[in-house]
């Protein structure tokens, strides 16, 4: 048969029509859309049995209870524990992101040994036996050589027992150089013991306060126990309790305060003392308390305050006019149950004591100590461990002075001064450093100096769960499980007025080849033998926890938290019978106690003041920001990898900057490229950047974003306590 053109065409048309009428194209169209609805690369979460497990969050000192929803063995959601007295079901953004830390890409999957140059990121996986042997051999060698004092540790651990165990290890091994990272709690603890006497944790009965004066405390920016503070603020708003916040910048706390006092940076203590001036001058203080339970008011404190802190004079320093100061003082003194509270931002750095003294003096003037709705002294009573029996090597080592200059036995640590000492190499060298749940290479001021100090330490062991900035710069990493995989005790909750003991416990099986620091430390102690092994003879960390929590260990496994809600602070007669409240801190010269700490840098070359601020949307300590938290950061803080610096439009105008302009920020400590963000909510002449950005380590979701403001900050020692006291640094902003 001959197929002509016409025949061919009709065949083609027929075939086309046939196909169109057949189910084929329709089926194909349908299948394609079904395929597009089930793309194999879009994950489908597995179903399974659902249950909820309670624990305690240790990502910050907040001590919130958490309820973790699980599907089979997977943890799928962290929520606030409804029955937990601290957070009552609420939870912060960081706590909510915890599973991104657990399952995240920054986890150190198993023990690692550095093979390349330090900080170059070349690692060799090793077994736990090898890892522990490495450390044990090193520590044995140093101890054999009679230099146990040259081993140091830095701990930011939340666990009370772990920190106690580290102290015990130091005692038995023979080193005075154990450093806990101090926070505002330590500064509060020290100032309270210098004014009240005794040792106690400070608590605030905010829920019953009638007036709250915050001297720079970021009450709604992560201060204390963040979720609890949000709840307290809600109570204040509903009950009409006034919140006054003093800060140069319109932080979230300032924004929610009924009155925002925009003060010149670093002059909060002066403002408090000027208020004291008015209170004393107008005899607004609480006479029954002041007369019977305090001392050094009329003879010491009064003289200083009346002489040097008249509102008119202080107005010049603080930028707050005298009338406002007087009004504030009267309001505060006349309010029912007023509380004055301080600490800069979240209080992750302790700060200078003058502010704590001044704030606490205000509370004493209005007699609101150990009263309902006041400032309380709280203690959690725990069984104590038997004393350590140091051998002769240990005794010799302990005889050395601490590198941070604190007298032993030390109640506080000064890692800032420790770093200065190591960097300068003046005293004796540090041969080994153990870093536990902390990231000092990132979190301490003047990171260049920290790096310099670290470069002089030949053996750095990190116990971090994450490849953080310090872990990346260590020689050996012995990864700790994260808080959702291990057991820890949390004693006390920052700023919470009731004695609290909680147990954070494993929600899921360890996701990586990790071991709890406590267990590893016990294994190392065993390897070291002698008095060290004897002092740390527990079979594992849980046994240790049992030793420190006693009977509670078992009950806490079920209840998660124990709170003494019936707790009443000791009456005045009881606390101030033996030792009266002292308006001038004991052992501190009157003129030194209230002397403000200056700012590094000269105003000529550096006309601006750079301040670091804290925000709930940036985790700025050992825990790096998880992706969700970085996702909710404003684009006025971070834009791509550029950090933004906040300045007042007036400042911008005088320097010729517009929103989004590139700039170089320079301080005596360093410089960095930033973008400019204009905001009316900041004092002209001040520039602000958040803590928590600019990590060199971690993952694609955090590394290299913004700049670490700590790089630009100098370390300033508080003249009274030695605490890190820098509240800012002089800076210069120029076109880039």
């Amino acid at each position: 048969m001959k197929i002509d053109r016409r025949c061919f065409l009709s065949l083609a048309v027929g075939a086309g029509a046939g196909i169109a009428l057949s189910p084929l194209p329709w089926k194909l169209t349908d299948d394609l859309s079904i395929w597009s609805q089930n793309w194999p690369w879009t994950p489908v979460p597995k179903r399974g049995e659902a249950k909820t497990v309670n624990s305690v969050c240790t990502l910050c000192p907040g001590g919130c209870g958490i309820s973790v929803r699980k599907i089979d063995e997977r943890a799928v959601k962290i929520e606030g524990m409804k029955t937990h007295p601290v957070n009552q079901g609420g939870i912060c953004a960081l706590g909510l992101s915890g599973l991104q830390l657990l399952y995240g890409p920054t986890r150190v999957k198993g023990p690692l040994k550095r093979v390349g140059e330090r900080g170059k990121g070349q690692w060799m996986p090793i077994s736990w036996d090898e890892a522990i042997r490495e450390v044990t051999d090193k520590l044995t060698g140093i101890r054999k050589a009679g230099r146990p004092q040259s081993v140091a540790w830095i701990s930011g651990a939340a666990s009370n027992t772990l920190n106690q165990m580290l102290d015990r290890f130091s005692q038995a091994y023979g080193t005075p150089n154990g450093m806990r990272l101090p926070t505002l709690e330590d500064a509060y603890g020290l100032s309270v013991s210098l004014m009240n006497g005794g040792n106690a944790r400070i608590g605030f009965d905010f829920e019953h306060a009638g007036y709250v004066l915050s001297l720079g405390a970021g009450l709604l920016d992560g201060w204390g126990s963040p979720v609890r503070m949000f709840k307290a603020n809600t109570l204040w708003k509903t009950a009409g309790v006034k919140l006054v916040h003093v800060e140069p910048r319109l932080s979230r706390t300032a924004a929610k305060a009924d009155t925002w006092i925009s003060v010149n940076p670093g002059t909060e203590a002066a403002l408090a003392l000027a208020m004291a001036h008015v209170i004393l001058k107008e005899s607004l203080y609480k006479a029954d308390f002041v007369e019977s339970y305090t001392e050094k008011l009329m003879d010491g404190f009064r003289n200083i305050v009346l002489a040097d802190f008249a509102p008119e004079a202080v107005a010049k320093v603080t930028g707050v006019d005298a009338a406002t100061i007087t009004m504030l003082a009267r309001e505060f003194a006349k309010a029912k149950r007023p509380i004055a509270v301080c600490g800069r931002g979240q209080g992750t750095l302790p700060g200078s004591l003058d502010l704590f003294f001044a704030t606490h003096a205000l509370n004493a003037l209005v007699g609101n100590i150990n009263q309902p709705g006041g400032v309380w002294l709280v203690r959690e009573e725990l069984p104590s461990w038997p004393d350590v029996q140091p051998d002769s090597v240990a005794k010799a080592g302990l005889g050395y002075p601490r590198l941070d200059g604190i007298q032993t036995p030390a109640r506080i640590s000064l890692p800032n001064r420790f770093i200065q000492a190591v960097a300068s190499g003046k005293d004796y060298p540090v041969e080994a450093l153990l870093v536990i749940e902390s990231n000092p290479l990132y979190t301490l001021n003047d990171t260049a100096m920290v790096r310099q100090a670290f470069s002089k330490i030949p053996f750095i062991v990190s116990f971090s769960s994450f490849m953080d900035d310090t872990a990346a710069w260590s020689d050996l990493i012995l990864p700790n499980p994260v808080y959702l995989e291990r057991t820890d005790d949390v004693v006390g909750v920052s700023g919470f007025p009731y004695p609290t003991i909680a147990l954070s416990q494993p929600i899921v099986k360890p996701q990586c080849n990790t071991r709890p620091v406590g267990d590893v430390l016990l294994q190392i102690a065993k390897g070291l033998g002698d008095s060290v092994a004897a002092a740390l003879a527990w079979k594992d960390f849980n046994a240790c926890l049992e030793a420190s929590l006693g009977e509670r260990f078992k009950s806490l496994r079920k209840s998660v938290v124990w709170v003494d809600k019936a707790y009443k602070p000791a009456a005045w007669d009881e606390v101030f019978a033996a030792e009266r409240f002292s308006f001038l801190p004991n052992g501190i010269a009157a003129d030194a106690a209230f002397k403000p700490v200056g700012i590094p840098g000269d105003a000529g070359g550096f006309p601006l003041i750079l301040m670091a601020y804290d925000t709930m949307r940036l985790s700025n300590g050992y825990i790096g920001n998880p992706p969700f938290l970085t996702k909710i950061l404003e684009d006025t803080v971070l834009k791509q990898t550029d950090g933004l610096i906040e300045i007042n439009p007036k400042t911008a105008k005088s320097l010729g900057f517009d929103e989004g302009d590139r700039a170089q920020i320079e301080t005596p400590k360093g410089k960095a490229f930033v973008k400019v963000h204009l905001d009316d909510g900041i004092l002209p002449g001040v520039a602000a950047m958040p803590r928590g950005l600019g990590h060199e380590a971690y993952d694609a979701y955090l590394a290299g974003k913004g700049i670490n403001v700590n790089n630009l900050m100098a370390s300033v020692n508080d003249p009274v306590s030695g605490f890190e006291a820098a509240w800012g640094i002089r800076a210069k902003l120029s076109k880039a």
Partner: protein
Amino acid sequence: MKNEHSHQTTKKFGMVINLDLCTGCGSCMVACMAENNVPFKPDETDKLKSITWMRVYRLTNGKPFPETDVCYLPRPCQHCEGHDGHSPCVSVCPATATDYDSLTGIVSQIYTRCFGCRYCMAACPYHARYFNWYDPVWPDGMEKYLNPNVSPRMRGVVEKCSFCYHRYQAAKDRAYVEGQRDIAEEDYQTACTQACPAGAITFGDLNNPDHAVYKLKQDPRAFRLLERLGTNTKVYYISSKDWVRKAGDNYLPDERPKK
């Protein structure tokens, strides 16, 4: 105990958000992302391409230092009822991939039905709708935390706040198993409401006089966003500040808000 409102079947779920209490902490945003399998990218600083079903806006009064004031305003989908359920977005979706549920007042979104024309996004004045410009990618291992009650969305479709609809379904299931006729107020609460540390968000049935939102919405300081457009939203806001209430809608220079 006999429930007086048991015959009431038409619910109108909604929120009342107290802006005096909101601190802008962002818990609600993260709670929502964690609950609803919202993906994230290494760079989320382009806020015009960042999926946040709940977004907290920062409003300012526009005054110079130190009279400056700011207010944080959380914005979930407003679940607009419009006129008779003709929400701005629902009425325009050509494929009926988003719908107004007259039984609950919830504006749904069916990801597998949506073909990504984005007309609904153009229609929503609140920018509550987000497009999946990218394939969602969870770093290796992180997909373990995904919630099986909410399906992750594929590239090329629109998503938005669902008032945690899966929680409503779960609550109904529980109520059914327990032999209750109706679900109680506390049985169905959204993830953001629960998480908010300030207790700023209240969620419930706006039609039910027993629910907290019923009374709160009648607060004289309560307002809704862009009421003048006729979107008829189900998210109310409360603020004691005049400038904040005024910022809730557009007014001509000589006009003032009614409250």
